[in-house]
């Protein structure tokens, strides 16, 4: 296998793929040793900044369609573990690193109101481990390694969600529920990997792809694929397997909700995409039928049903959790079209929705800092007393609806175009219906914010909290106007994956 790096040199650039993943992993134990909450915040923040910097470098390196590979310990695949960065995962690495850095800025103030101070160090350590897991899943080209990193991120996520119990004990049951479901998902996934290993004798993605091609119509591989789809379906909250998500998002600390909503489900979806295109043969009729008869209907049900449920939710975090389910439906829909345009739309929407949802959850978090309450009526009159947070919320909401000039519009446009290209008129109409539902639930909140009087007055949150919220909101607008970061890279990624 051709490698573009020179083995044995100590050139830092060549080690970027591994540095991306292990930077947060190395910092995490240091935090526990130091056991100082300000210092651990600072170190985590530095760590995420380094990750962000590396991800930008990586994205630049692969933006021309090339691939960066890294052999762990110098062992060449298929024996050793390979890390492989191309356009498709560089865009996700960028999303995860950016969101984690922004979320950490927000956590400085938000964490004080949600978690006792002596737990902060452990929280940050856990957060960094979760980040490691997510980055690792995306960067690796070894399917067992995917499982390992997935478990690292999942286990730390269960802990992070449970941290919400200092505010509301129900976080514990939400976390436990998530633990059970997540473990079932992981089990399915690892069984799927087992089947593939049984049939091909390899764990390296490129290697498997070659051997699967030679096997032809193989029941074992198909069973493995089915297990992987179900396993990842659980992790990415595909509709009948979504029951863990609303409660986990609702009761987790806001910082965690922000981070998970923007990244975790997208990473699981990325794994599915990677398996379909880089491990299996996407032209295989089994996969195509599975996607057409199973994935597409489920995606559409998610788009419509979750949006309708969101309209009737009074708990704001729950409302946006259901909205996330609907948005995951969009991404799955793009994937289920099995076309270059659909895949690109799906990837673009991952990034755009990541920023949009993070902006929304974060501004909700800022409201909650003041009101200590996450119900709709607690927002009464906040448009006047917290004008900056409210404005950022409105921008995020408009992007979620998909108003032109915002990031959401771009993804919706691409998705509609992809649906039309495949000739699915009805699907295109349903996408639009779903976004009209989004108008309803967003506008309900905006009316409460701006058009009802409040008995209490609050002051605007401090600048350190406002900054990350506004960075995310401006991202929502920036990605709606300049799409070179998203659409160009996603098109390149789709091209690479369809090769």
């Amino acid at each position, binding site marked *: 296998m051709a490698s573009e790096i020179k083995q044995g040199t100590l050139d830092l650039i060549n080690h970027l793929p591994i540095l991306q993943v292990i930077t947060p992993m190395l910092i995490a134990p240091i935090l526990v040793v130091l056991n100082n909450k300000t210092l651990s915040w600072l170190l985590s923040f530095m760590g995420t900044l380094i990750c962000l910097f590396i991800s930008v470098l990586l994205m630049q390196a692969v933006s021309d369609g090339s691939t960066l590979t890294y052999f762990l310990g110098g062992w060449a695949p298929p024996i050793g573990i390979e890390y492989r960065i191309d356009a498709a995962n560089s865009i996700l690495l960028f999303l995860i690193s950016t969101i984690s850095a922004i979320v950490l800025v927000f956590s400085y103030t938000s964490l004080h109101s949600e978690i006792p101070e002596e737990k902060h160090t452990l929280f940050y350590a856990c957060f960094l481990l979760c980040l490691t897991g997510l980055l690792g899943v995306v960067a690796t080209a070894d399917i067992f390694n995917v499982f390992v990193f997935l478990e690292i991120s999942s286990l730390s996520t269960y802990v992070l969600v449970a941290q919400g119990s200092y505010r509301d004990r129900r976080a514990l049951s939400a976390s436990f529920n998530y633990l059970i479901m997540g473990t079932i998902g992981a089990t399915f996934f690892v069984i799927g990997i087992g089947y593939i290993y049984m049939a091909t004798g390899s764990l390296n993605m490129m290697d498997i792809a070659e051997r699967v091609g030679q096997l032809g119509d193989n029941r074992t591989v198909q069973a493995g694929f089915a297990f992987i789809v179900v396993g990842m379906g659980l992790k990415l909250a595909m509709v009948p397997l979504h029951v863990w998500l609303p409660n986990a998002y609702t009761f987790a600390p806001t910082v965690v909700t922000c981070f998970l909503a923007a990244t975790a489900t997208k990473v699981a979806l990325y794994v599915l995409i990677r398996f379909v295109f880089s491990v299996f043969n996407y032209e295989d009729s089994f996969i195509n039928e599975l996607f057409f008869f199973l994935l597409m209907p489920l995606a559409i049900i998610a788009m419509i049903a979750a949006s309708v449920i969101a309209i009737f939710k009074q708990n704001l975090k729950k409302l946006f959790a259901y909205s996330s389910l609907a948005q995951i439906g969009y991404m799955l829909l793009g994937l289920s079209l099995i076309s270059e345009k659909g895949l690109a739309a799906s990837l673009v929407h991952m990034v755009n929705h990541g920023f949009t949802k993070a902006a929304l959850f974060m501004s909700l978090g800022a409201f909650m800092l003041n009101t200590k309450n996450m119900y709709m009526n607690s927002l009464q009159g906040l448009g006047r007393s917290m004008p900056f947070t409210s404005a950022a919320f409105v921008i995020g909401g408009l992007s979620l609806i998909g108003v032109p000039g915002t990031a959401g519009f771009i993804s919706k446009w691409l998705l509609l175009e992809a649906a039309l290209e495949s000739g699915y008129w009805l699907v295109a109409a349903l996408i639009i219906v779903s976004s009209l539902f989004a108008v*309803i639930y967003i506008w309900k909140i905006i*009316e409460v914010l*701006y058009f009802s009087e409040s008995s209490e007055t609050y002051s605007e949150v401090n600048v350190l909290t406002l900054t990350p919220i506004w960075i995310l909101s401006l991202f929502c607008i920036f990605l709606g106007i300049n799409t070179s970061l998203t659409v160009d890279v996603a098109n390149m990624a789709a091209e690479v994956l369809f090769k």
Partner: protein
Amino acid sequence: MQIEYLIFLTIFTPALVGCLNLVFHKNANMRDGVTLLGALITFYFSVNIFLGFDGQATQYKLVTIMPGIDVSFHIEPLGVIFSLLASSLWILTHIYAIGYMRGANEKNHSRFFLFFSVSIASVMGISFSGNLFTLFLFYEILTLITFPLVSHKGSSEALRGARVYLSILLGTSIGLQLLGIIWIYFSVGTLDFVKGGILNGSFGPVELIILVALFAFGIGKAALFPFHRWLPAAMVAPTPVSALLHAVAVVKAGVFTVLKVGVYIFGIESLSVSGATDWLTWLACFSILFASLIAMTKDNLKARLAYSTISQLGYVVLAFSLANSLGVLGGALQIITHAFGKITLFMCAGSIYVATKKTNISDMQGLGRVMPITFLSFLVGAISIIGLPPMGGSWAKWFLIMSSLEADKQFVIIVLLISSLLNIAYLLPLVAKGFYLNPTDHIDFIKFKEPSAFIWLPPAITASISFLLFFYVDYIRDFVINFGLVG
């Protein structure tokens, strides 16, 4: 100055003025003065664009969002007319709004003027849009920006009205228009406005009919039946908003979009050959008569004017559906003359409200004797709307009748005649009652008088312009023909 900078300036100035409203919100006179100055400067820029326009439809790209999708601007006769219309009426409406907001004791003036100015900026963006995407962008911004204006009072009634307003406008534009736009982009690969259309036969006859429907209904601001409910609902807004936005800027943005899509996307010739708009002629006729009939049943003056607006907007949709040069000319003239006529009527309604707090027509008996200027202005505006000489509105109807003859659709003439009769029946009684009948309540009546000059002067001016348009219509016709809007 280069013409592309002028375009950006006409859009930028009102937006900047809106922000300055926040800076000066402590000092009301300063704030209103700055806004007036901004309105004058915007008008000056629009006039300069009009003077500098050489008939070349060059595209000025601002940013490329995706390959093939740009935010770009261009200048063409229809847009020049629309920007002149909106910016000139903004000056008058602003003067009126200063008097109205203070006279009617409305609250939150700075917020009001902020959104008012920014909505003008998006109207300017609509006028100079160089492609369908840019048009859609500003169209949606206009919907969202005018929401706080409609719900300005903040009462539950205002909120309900605003909700209807937003849901119909966003619902139609996202649900139908966006689908049409993407369909065109997907089939043709471009969204640029090009004279003669860009479709080039990529759509079959049935597909073309569907596409026409997606735009005719999707441009909800044109208030075509059955998507007209938002317009009466929006009447909960303060009167200056009803006057400028819901008689001129927003609704005209709708019919302007209809005409622009007809001329620059579908192409008038290919539309008339394909006959894809024949059904729309019938629907527009129905919309015209239906709204007029409803208007007769309304006792609330603003509601009656709102239904009258729906009826009058039907004329422009009708012009589009007739699909010939005379129709486009008639549509353009209808946009201009109806703007001046209807803004006069709304301002008069507002001035009656400020002076007497009366909103129902049945309570306005005898008011003409104490408010002669207001009622005379109303009379002039009404005659222009009805389409009788010597007011500008008669020309729009004239060209529409000519156009329907050319399209060989004689029944349209009958519809137009009936509509004019209905207009007489629901607009003129107010004037007649105002001047000839005795007031019901003499004790209150003595206290009433014309409100301040801020309020009565602007409608008097727009009424005079309605009158002048009758004599100077030739200039508009020449401008439209010489600069190649119609053959």
